[in-house]
């Protein structure tokens, strides 16, 4: 049977067909839908969200050691978080087949960098497999489990935004049940003490030699001979671009198994073509290794290592082809940057925070990163998941040590707090910095599309769970000053901030209101007044001061001719933030 599937759907299907019984992940674009799609196979496997990628990786490692085929999935930067277990897992090897899906994001569609995670495979001495389309996502995952078990090695399954999110036709098969490997204690393999590690390292080097031999033989590395004037070595979705541009006017060595590289096969291929070109997205991962092996080729001197490729970029770089285009004047286009949604609970909090002067604000990763954008302009820095709290602490200590008087606030979401923010809060409490930490609890993992987290009360497969109580957790860590406020109540947020600034020592402000787009749970409906509300501008009272516009609500607009603000009745959900911001009491609740 053929089905039209995204790469993410196909990976989930492939893992199911390969007999996987356990999978763990932390959501992150473009990887999120892999685990979400495994839920449909829950009769045969268990899929769970982890609070962060390191934990997901370790959950999956545990399941492999227990003897079953397992999968861990994360976005590229998530692998940074999971790198600690990954590198030692490369040494020990596996019991049940192990696949780590790394979903890279060339072009930074929704990421803070565009790192090329193929280097992680080389760095941690494990296998790298790169699919080019949805069918290969399914097929190669199944191959990956065979390779992982045969060579006792974890596999890094490297996808990119395009392989994750584009759809193609995929041939499906039945699930193959793989019995668990009976558990036997193997301290010499799995207790990674220095003594064991010293023994394991040469074993790993030997495995890599065997894997290179396999790389030269496997069907995952495929030669397609056509015209021999140009030979192209390519991998991942870049193969599709090269094929699109050159068709049968070039020959191809399509690398699906890209670490260890099939160097003999490449050398043989190079001997059959006049000129060798490497077409790969992002870094010269293959090119560098080929050049180090003495194979003459061109690559990144022509093809950019910045941003996402497409057929047009490849054609321009290699053939000098410039396609004709049409355009209209730039004044007919206005940017459309993402914004906080209408009714977003973060808006009230950020609006109140934006009124505070001389505050350094460290931010974090989630929808609330948009608090950094105009008109709220409330966040000064965002580096990584969980970083806001520890950065605020370090900054506070540095300012204090150098006798600089500076207020410091960190901003982090609920899911990101559970991810790694909680560790940071421990250092804040223990080292007692004079800082204010705001946990914006919108009762869901918002940006990636509403995944459950340890604070929501539900698990990935829909079962209920006991929520982690953030105020209790904060108290247990040792923070004495902790308040919970409604972020849509501007006065309450303002007071919470002022009280926290006045307090000597660390304080925490938790804002608690559900994401406006969330499918509300019964508990949400009980706790929050979510009844339908709407607001309207009284044009007689509106003086056109535009203060409400500074809340950045997409439902608010300003008529330049009448000099009046307007609320779109089709989208307003009555959060009331604009009404509270209005100095002339011109925005009132619609009474029906």
């Amino acid at each position, binding site marked *: 049977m053929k089905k*039209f599937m995204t790469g993410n759907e196909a990976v989930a299907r492939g893992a199911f067909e390969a007999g996987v019984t356990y999978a763990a992940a932390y959501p992150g*674009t*473009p990887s999120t839908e892999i685990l979400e799609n495994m839920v449909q196979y829950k009769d045969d496997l268990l899929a769970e969200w982890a609070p962060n990628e390191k934990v997901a990786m370790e959950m999956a490692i545990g399941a492999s050691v227990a003897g079953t085929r397992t999968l861990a999935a994360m976005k590229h930067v998530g692998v940074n978080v999971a790198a600690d277990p990954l590198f030692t897992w490369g040494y020990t090897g596996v019991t049940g087949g192990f696949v780590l899906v790394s979903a890279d994001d060339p072009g930074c*569609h*929704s990421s803070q960098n565009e790192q090329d995670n193929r280097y992680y495979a080389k760095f941690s001495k494990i296998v790298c497999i790169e699919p080019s*389309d949805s069918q290969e996502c399914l097929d190669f995952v199944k191959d990956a489990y065979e390779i992982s078990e045969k060579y006792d090695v974890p596999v890094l399954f490297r996808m990119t*935004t*395009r392989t994750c*999110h*584009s*759809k*193609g*036709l995929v041939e499906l098969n039945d699930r193959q049940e793989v019995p668990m490997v009976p558990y036997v204690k193997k301290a010499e393999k799995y207790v990674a003490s220095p003594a064991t590690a010293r023994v394991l390292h040469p074993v790993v080097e030997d495995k890599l030699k065997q894997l290179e031999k396999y790389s030269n033989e496997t069907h995952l590395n495929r030669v397609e001979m056509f015209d021999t004037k140009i030979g192209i070595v390519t991998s991942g*979705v870049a193969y*599709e*671009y090269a*094929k*699109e541009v050159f*068709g049968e006017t070039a020959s191809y060595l399509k690398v699906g198994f890209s670490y260890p590289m099939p160097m003999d096969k490449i050398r043989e291929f190079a001997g059959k073509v006049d000129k060798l070109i490497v077409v790969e997205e992002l870094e010269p991962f293959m090119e560098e290794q080929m050049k180090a092996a003495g194979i003459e080729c061109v690559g990144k001197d022509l093809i950019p290592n910045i941003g996402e490729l*497409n*057929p*047009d*970029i490849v*054609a321009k770089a290699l053939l000098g082809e410039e*396609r*004709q*285009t*049409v*355009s*209209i*004047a730039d*004044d*007919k*286009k*206005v*940017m*459309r*940057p*993402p*914004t*906080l*949604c209408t009714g977003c609970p973060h808006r009230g909090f950020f609006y109140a925070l934006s009124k505070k002067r001389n505050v350094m604000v460290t931010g974090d990763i989630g*929808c609330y990163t*948009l608090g950094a*954008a*105009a*008109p709220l302009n409330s966040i000064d820095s965002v580096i990584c998941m969980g970083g806001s709290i520890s950065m605020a602490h370090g900054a506070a200590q540095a300012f204090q040590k150098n006798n600089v008087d500076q207020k410091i606030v960190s901003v982090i979401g609920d899911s990101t707090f559970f991810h790694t923010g909680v560790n940071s809060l421990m250092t804040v409490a223990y080292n007692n910095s004079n800082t204010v930490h705001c946990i914006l609890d919108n009762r869901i993992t918002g*940006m990636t*599309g509403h995944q459950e987290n340890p604070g929501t009360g539900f698990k990935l497969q829909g079962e209920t769970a006991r929520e982690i109580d953030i105020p209790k957790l904060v108290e247990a860590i040792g923070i004495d000053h902790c308040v919970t406020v409604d972020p849509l109540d501007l006065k309450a947020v303002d007071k919470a901030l002022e009280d926290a600034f006045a307090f000597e020592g660390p304080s925490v402000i938790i804002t608690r209101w559900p994401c406006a*787009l969330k499918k509300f749970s019964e508990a949400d409906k009980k706790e929050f007044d979510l009844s339908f509300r709407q607001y309207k501008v009284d044009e007689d009272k509106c003086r056109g001061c*535009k203060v409400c*516009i*500074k809340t*950045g*609500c*997409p439902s*608010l*607009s*300003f008529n*330049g001719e009448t000099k009046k603000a307007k609320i779109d009745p089709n989208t307003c959900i009555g959060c009331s933030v604009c009404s509270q911001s209005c100095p002339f009491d011109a925005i009132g609740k619609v009474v029906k």
Partner: protein
Amino acid sequence: MSDVKNILLAGVGGQGIILASKILSIGLIQAGYDVKMSEVHGMAQRGGSVTTQVRYGKKVYSPIIGKGQADILVSFETMETGKWLEFLKPDGKVVVNEFEIPSAPILACDAEYPQGVIEALNEKVDLTTFKAGELALELGNIRTANVIIVGALVKAMGLMDIDWELVIKETVKPQFVDINLKALQVGMDQVK
């Protein structure tokens, strides 16, 4: 260089572009084409631009196109058209649903919604415009606007032979089949 046709759909999150692409893809698959569809939806739900690309032919390699490659640009929102125009072949077709959704800089009074977009387009390309929202309201359901746009696209691309009735039956709830079939026809009627 090949027989592959490229469709670029553009608009704003929430306009039903993903569903429109799905309907289109299913129809093309049923007609026996190899099809690839690519979408960018990273932060689209937060009010950003959304585009999807549907490519079909005997054998499709790349899931995406570059500049100057689309046979047709179908825009669900007036201003979005200009932003994606450079992806169109110079002799390609443009279908625009005349509907204005102001973006954040416009709402914040930092910019004005551009005027004269349709006139500017008319000078450069083979253009079809209509107001799908108003046509959908005439039909009795605003939510059929995206299917009206699909209808126009089908006609413009000469894909009338595909059994769209079957596709609609497979993709929408039974009670909405009739109205969506009408919507498809209304869309087709917009294209000469």
